[in-house]
């Protein structure tokens, strides 16, 4: 019995030929995401803004409207209620109270008094505003470290053009994931950095596989025009790229659909990121190499086995 050939082996899509359309498409996506980030911004969760998050379970079907009306009488500012999972599970979000630590404790007690003993508190989180700036800082450090680390790795193993093009494609992915958060208003939490860095790690993985093939083919076909060579390499690895994307998307779909609220909420951006990451690897990162004369500089680098 043979496996199914999902992508015909003689596939020959002219990726290089359509590159300018791709650049325009990518630029359009980046502009859209950038515009949304600049004007709409991110819907920061309490990890970043500070505030309260309560996950409660009521004994009977919860009356959200009534609960909201009750909570609003406390005058604690913006109150958000959201049903999730079942009709007995409610997520309550309340913004940070003015005043110090004491004010937060008092407000939390007020909320608990109001909701009474009939509800089960499944999760209670209080975050002061102070932690958030560290969180952003750590996240940016992590992102910077990852990008530079990858750039150096590819530089050492390939050539600096590859590193640069790979990182440009990654920046594209980061903007798309952030843009997804912004456009959909998906809550931006600490775990958002997981989504971004997973996307980055995955996308560079795809790009590296294609680069690796380009490097091989540069050695194999010394006379082939570079456009043709990039096309050949991308097509040769296309089956692998698509199958790996498929298995990863399958995993993520399982997490998104059945992983519970918390896992589900950060699986979605990863899902979007990975799909776009593959797009950028197939269509963008290799094509960007055409801006450089890679044949001249890519010597016999990176032969391991």
């Amino acid at each position: 019995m043979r496996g199914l050939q999902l992508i015909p082996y003689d596939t020959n899509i002219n990726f290089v030929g359509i590159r300018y359309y791709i650049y325009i498409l990518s630029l359009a996506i980046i502009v859209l995401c950038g515009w949304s980030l600049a004007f709409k911004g991110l819907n920061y969760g309490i990890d970043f803004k500070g505030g309260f998050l309560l996950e409660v379970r009521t004994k009977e079907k919860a009356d959200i409207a009534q609960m909201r009306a009750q909570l609003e009488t406390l005058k604690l500012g913006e109150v958000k209620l959201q049903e999730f999972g079942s009709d007995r599970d409610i997520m309550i979000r309340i913004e940070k109270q003015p005043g110090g630590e004491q004010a937060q404790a008092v407000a939390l007690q007020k909320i608990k008094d109001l909701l009474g003993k009939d509800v089960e508190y499944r999760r209670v989180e209080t975050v002061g505003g102070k932690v958030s700036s560290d969180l952003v800082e750590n996240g940016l450090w992590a992102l910077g470290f990852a990008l530079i680390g990858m750039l150096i790795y590819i530089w050492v193993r390939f050539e600096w053009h590859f590193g640069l093009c790979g990182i440009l494609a990654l920046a594209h992915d980061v903007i798309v994931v952030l843009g997804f958060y912004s456009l959909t208003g998906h809550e931006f939490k600490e775990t958002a950095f997981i989504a971004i860095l997973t996307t980055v790690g995955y996308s560079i993985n795809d790009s590296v596989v294609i680069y690796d093939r380009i490097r091989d083919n540069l050695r194999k076909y010394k006379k082939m025009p570079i456009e043709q060579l990039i096309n050949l390499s991308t097509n040769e690895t296309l089956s692998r790229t698509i199958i790996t994307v498929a298995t990863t998307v399958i995993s993520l779909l399982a997490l998104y659909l059945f992983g519970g609220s918390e896992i589900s909420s950060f699986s979605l951006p990863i899902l979007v990121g990975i799909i776009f990451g593959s797009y950028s690897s197939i269509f963008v990162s290799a094509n960007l190499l055409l801006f450089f004369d890679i044949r001249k500089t890519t010597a016999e680098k990176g032969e391991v086995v």
Partner: protein
Amino acid sequence: MLTLARWKVITSLVLCVLSLIYAFPNFIGDEGLKKIPSWLPHERVNLGLDLQGGSHLLLEVDVKAGLKERLSFTLDALRKTLRAEKIGYLDLSLDPTGDFITFQLRDPNQAEKIISMIKKMDSELEATLEEKGCKVTFTKASIAERKRSIVDQSIEIVRRRIDELGTKEPSIQRQGDDRILIQIPGLSDPGRIKNLLGKTAKMTFHLVHEEQPYASKVDDITPPGTEILPSEDVRQDGRKIFYVLRKESLLGGESLIDAGVNFDEYHRPQVSFRFDPLGAKKFGDITTKNIHRQLAIVLDGKVISAPTIQTPITGGNGVITGKFTVQEANDLALLMRAGALVAPLLVLEERTVGPDLGADSIASGRYATILSVIMVAVFMLIAYSLFGFFANVAMLFNLILTIAVLSLIGATLTLPGIAGIALTMGMAVDANVLINERIKEELRHGRKMFSAIDVGYRQAMNTILDSNLTTLIGAAALFFFGTGPVKGFGITLAIGILISMFTATTLSRVFVTYWVNWSKPAKLPI
């Protein structure tokens, strides 16, 4: 005939067996765990608070306040020294920012002498002459040192207070420069702990002023050398009493060695305490000299009791009576035993997860992981037939090995960590996809079966190494810069990637080699 180095085969098999043994305790209940012979491993994966339920508190040590406090001790010492040396000064005070002490000299010519004198008094002090006068502060090096010691002492006191509560397995760690992370599994209401940690518990004994013991408000005019402190005591007309106390502290909480709760004849709770020998002697002297006067016990700027000394107390034992509930008395005794904080603590973050939610999270996480493994496995079977099956067995061992390694190194599994495992399953087959695609390609290019497998594995290795190492850099970034759940995700992702480099290449090759040699197929089912 395909060949494979014997040591690779043996190592692979040994690793697989070991991984089964080490992962096993995670799949049986507590009852089952007791039945395993003692020579087998019993370690399980630690569950993060988000999975087992519990409270997480992030505290910040108010280092600045701690430094200010220390500088105020220096201020007293400096005043004494200046007097002793008969040096005239004006406006000796602590700057409101708490960063330095300032004063002016009556005789500017003494400046040099004073600066060297201060240096001699304490080598960690630094005195500078400015237009407005003399400025004294700690040296940069000693500030760093002091900050560190303030945080260290705070952690110690926090630990003592929490240990006194008898909660199970609390974890107390320093985080960053000035933060303390407390994690208490199973605790569903951190209110009491927060309350206990919110108190500095600085305890001092002061004499109440003889002529004017009470004031009606905090800012009443009082005799020099006294201060007004609030209390819980009430007058007959129902208004709260403010005590007028001598500023000088006769004795402090640091001399206490024990405290406990007992009940008076009316069954009201009271706190009894005992001083160390030196404290007991001092306490004896104070009570002997000041008989029939009121002695106030002050805790964190509030008078908790101000009894009149009836007889000299020389044994070093005393009791505090007040309007306590049993819990308040217990907490007070606990704070007295554990000692005072050197700086106030602020709660920056509090997260509590109920045990039910944790259990639900584990259940849904497990379900999603199993589902993702099954779906990926089916997909691989469709795409690569028998070679897909080999990849699937390798993936299964990847899962088992990951669990085994997590148990072995005592890593903590968090909710995102579960997602990390599920996601790695999808990515782990990538190496097999690369290999299988290569083998197919080599076959198309007309290579013979054995040679195609051999070249396919070898060629793909290069790519696998490059692609996995770059992903590993991303996982490392999450591990080093992330906190809590993010770190947990980074660990599982990194472990998963490293393990996949073994399972997908070496282990799957063992299967393929043995199968090909055994069945001698005419065509590869790939």
